[in-house]
């Protein structure tokens, strides 16, 4: 199929799936088709992204389309610059399909907390009736639905505690969160800086790999971008250990076998493990004892950073602004911020402001940072590869006893019906992140891959987690699982 035909197909699906609300703003149709047509005639270009339509999550800055973060406070905001990742994609010949819908500022697990209305998911058009609509997962639900329904070739999302992996699992596509620091965050609107990671949503792991290969680049604009020297060391290691895929040591974290795990997902998990063993890989139970505290730690740390990051939205320099004086009701900017933010954002700002307050910081923020450190140490004990960020520390683990990757379900349940969410408390939503949050806290690469284990049951997302910097192995294992 020519690139032009593919683009036309995407645009036609954008029309037919409009009700799912995957996009907040679409690129101009004619401009997209012109670019695709031009790409077809451009014979020099052989790069995989050339002429492909890529959706961009709406918290990633673009200078030609508004960047709203799905928030009322940025509803009319257009950034004066392109995020580094957008610049790279454009340079590689990709076409920006549009800006995808999401939970406001990335805060949510079902992509329903959007100023522009909730995202919905249905596996095919006949199920689009609102009774049957499913949660798309969050917060990158718009990107996931757009890819799953063919509205674009692939999409960028952001993953702070599972925001790429959960929607990928719910919509049956691949969602990859790279190691923290590999992909530039310059131009990515911060939710929780120490966790935010740009991720890729794609139909398969090969496409995810192709996009990752482009955006995996040092950026001096991002102070947390991993330095070139460390990148060089990491790639050396992975070349040396490239033989691992033929006989993997796969770890199964015992603490992930929780009571809340849906029985058919548990069955699928063991089925999958059995099949891997049959294919010559070894399965090892491993223990990550701090898993139980990880979710709580995440919901202390992420809101704390969010309360700080969102303090800039005061309507003074950009964004929406309430009418009347700024200090009208005695508290500066409270009217602008009260009108501009949605409920979930307000909830997390309050939560974060509290855990950072003088009386609470020791019991919450400091404790959560300690838990985060323990979670990292759990993982380092488990993997056979040492953590490249701590190379000089005497590694206590014996390389032979460690595992190459960890394998678990991406979420404890299948996607809930959208209408069932109405009765849920915020805490129920937070529960969906229980399997994805630990890798985020440790900054590890993780991918969710849809696996059809038994023929008559719909595929479900399984998560592969690797050591820091072992991104290429994680993606190779994803391809292996796809081929089972």
């Amino acid at each position, binding site marked *: 199929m020519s690139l032009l035909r593919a683009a036309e197909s995407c645009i036609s699906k954008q029309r037919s799936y409009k009700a799912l609300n995957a996009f907040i703003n679409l690129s101009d149709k004619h401009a997209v088709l012109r670019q695709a047509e031009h790409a077809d005639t451009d014979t020099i270009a052989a790069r995989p992204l050339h002429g492909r339509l890529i959706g961009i999550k709406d918290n*990633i*800055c673009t200078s030609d389309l508004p*960047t709203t973060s799905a928030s009322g406070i*940025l509803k*009319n*905001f*257009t*950034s*004066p*610059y392109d*995020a580094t990742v957008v610049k790279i994609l454009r340079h590689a010949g990709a076409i920006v399909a549009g800006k995808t819908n999401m939970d406001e500022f990335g805060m949510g697990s079902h992509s329903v907390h959007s100023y522009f209305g909730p995202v919905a998911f249905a596996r095919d058009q006949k199920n689009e009736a609102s009774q049957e609509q499913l949660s798309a997962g969050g917060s990158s639900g718009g990107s996931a639905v757009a890819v799953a329904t063919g509205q674009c070739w692939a999409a960028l999302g952001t993953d702070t505690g599972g925001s790429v992996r959960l929607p990928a699992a719910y919509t049956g596509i691949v969602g990859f969160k790279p190691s923290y*620091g590999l992909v530039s*965050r*310059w*131009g*990515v*609107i*911060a939710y*929780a*800086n*120490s966790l935010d990671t740009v991720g890729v949503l794609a139909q398969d792991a090969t496409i995810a790999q192709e996009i990752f290969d482009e955006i995996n680049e040092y950026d*001096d*604009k*991002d*102070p*947390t*971008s*991993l*330095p070139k*020297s*460390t990148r060089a060391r990491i790639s050396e290691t992975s070349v040396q250990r490239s033989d691992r895929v033929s006989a993997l040591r796969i770890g199964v974290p015992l603490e992930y076998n929780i009571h809340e795990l849906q029985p058919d997902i548990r069955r699928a998990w063991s089925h999958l493990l059995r099949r891997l063993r049959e294919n010559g890989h070894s399965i090892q139970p491993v223990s990550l004892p701090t898993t139980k505290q990880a979710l709580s730690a995440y919901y202390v740390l992420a809101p*704390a*950073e969010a*309360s*700080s990051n*969102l*303090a*800039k939205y*005061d*309507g*003074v*320099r*950009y*964004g929406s*602004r309430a009418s009347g*004086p*700024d200090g009208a009701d005695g508290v*500066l*900017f409270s009217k602008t911020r009260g009108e501009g933010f949605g409920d979930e954002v307000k909830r997390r700002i309050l939560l974060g*402001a509290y855990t*950072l*307050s*003088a009386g609470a910081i020791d019991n919450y*923020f400091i404790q959560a940072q300690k838990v985060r450190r323990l979670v990292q140490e759990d993982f380092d004990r488990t993997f056979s590869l040492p953590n490249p*960020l*701590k*190379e*000089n*520390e005497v590694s206590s683990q014996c390389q032979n006893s460690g595992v190459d990757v960890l394998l678990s379900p991406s979420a404890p349940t299948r996607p809930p019906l959208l209408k069932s969410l109405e009765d849920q408390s915020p805490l129920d939503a937070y529960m969906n992140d229980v399997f994805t949050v630990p890798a985020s806290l440790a*900054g590890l690469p993780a991918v969710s891959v849809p696996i059809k284990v038994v023929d008559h049951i719909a595929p479900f997302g399984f998560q592969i987690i690797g050591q820091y910097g072992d991104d290429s192995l994680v993606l190779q294992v994803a391809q292996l699982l796809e081929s089972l």
Partner: protein
Amino acid sequence: MGHPRNSINSRLRITSAQLPYICRGCMRRLQLHGGQPLRVNAQPRTIRALHITSITPEQIIPFRKQVKDEAKERKSKGKLNANRFNGKASDDRLKNWELTVGIEIHAELNTGRKLFSSAATSSGDVPNTHVALFDVAFPGSQPQFQKETLIPALRAALALQCDIQRKSSFDRKHYFYQDQPNGYQITQYYEPFAKGGRITLYDHDGIAPEDGKSVTIGIKQIQMEQDTAKTIQYPPSTHLLDFNRVSHPLIEIITLPHIHHPSTAAACVRKIQQILKSVNAVVTGMELGGLRADVNVSVRRKDKSDANSGRSYAGVTGLGQRTEIKNLSSFKAVEDAISAERDRQISVLEAGGVIEGETRGWSLGSTETRRLRGKEGEIDYRYMPDPDLGPVIIGEVRSFNWFLDFYLLILLQTLIEHLHKRLPLLPDDLVNLLTDPKKYNISLKDAKTLVALDDGERLEFYFEVCNELNLNFSKEGEENISVRLNKAACNWVLHELGGLLTTSGLPWDEQPIDIKTIASIVWNVDQKRITGTAAKQVLATKFEGDKRAVDQIVEEEDLLLRPLSDEQYLIMAEELVTENPAMVKAIKDKGQKGKIMWFVGQMMRKGGDGRVEAGRAEQMLKKVLDIP
């Protein structure tokens, strides 16, 4: 304040505009509401609020004007008020109470770039022309620590004898204000870059007599932080924001509560400013708003009867409840505000009251501090380590390993040593050098004045004059000629030139006298080629803009001292004695020998053009009057 998105975008693009940019929306709104149209070229009232919030910030007033205003204020209130702090009743009370003061000084660093972006620092440029995306907190932008800003900060810390910390880090201090785009200020709360310094103040620095010859004040820490934007007020309700200053690097210097007298506190701030200037860490001082002080004030009974219930700060125990006075903009304000607050606290306590821990303000020329906010109004700043900024590491890097330390600054230990070695002489060392009888031999008072004047430029000028004199004239073989010339040069640079500057009102950097002129005058006087009176005339002529060289003026104006013969002296002396019999009588009969000098004066006048030498005239007069 407040501009829709489009306007900020266009403002960021302004490169050269004649007038400060004002958002069109603002103009329209103002006109719609029947307000007066904005006069953009009117002198705006500029407000300075270094890091603080919700305080009505003081207006910047040039120091000279402030002193004048204060004098006026005192005059209008009568002498009673002016003596308030020094009254006898106050003296008696101070016997029972001890004052304790700690100071926080904020100073704008002398750097080319902002703390977290490559935008240039500036002052007085067209508003909003030096602004990077992060400076105005655009979504998705991130800080880029400019490591060059560390250099002046390190120089300041070394000059204040601090220990430079191997590892320091940046934290966010949260509060909402329109002059702070991110909603937080990035500062160093948990791990400052310098700790444990000290500064010694001497009696000649103006410390209180009770402190004796010298007193040493501990410095708890120095931290780096961001400045805020400048607010320009257009009353009644419009605020314009100039983001050129936002994120200009500052240091905050925090002293220990080691100060017990208001004048010592003022001397401390003055000396810290001098030191910061001398090591080129700052550009401007308090007089231009480049430096601000907050003071923490408490009192306790001297008999220590309440020592057990006392509070402590950084290891200093037994302190009374303190209050903080924010945003003091002159040395005098520091001294007066502390005196007033001390007296207020003593009055409250003696009346059986309790001091509230609160923040107070001080207005120029007032006699009392005023309450700004109490404990219940204290802001919880919710300090949080900045997740975008890794720690700053100063020191040798042994290997490339770091874990979650995203940002590693590599500065070799040798840099610190290098900076230390190249640190210019500090004010105390300069004063010691200038008063050294074997080098410059000038008085302590003159030495301190020279060091303090014109940002050190006067001193620089003086050294160059001395250099010129020594190069050209010291080969004469006379033993102490160099010290003698140096001492004489000081008089000309400081007092004679100073007098002309005062009369003319010219600032130092516009004065027309060059180094060669002063050196030549000093040499001519020293060699008795011209008299002092003639020399002053030459200097005044040059100051008026005369282009001729000193020697040419001396020659053409006939100023060269042609020594009069002894006969000429004798004739003049005899004439004067004959003309003034009454004076002669007073000297001879009543023994009023001092009157001889009256005759000397008369003779010098008679001689004209400074040709009569006082010494020879006196000799001749004594001879004529026949007194030994």
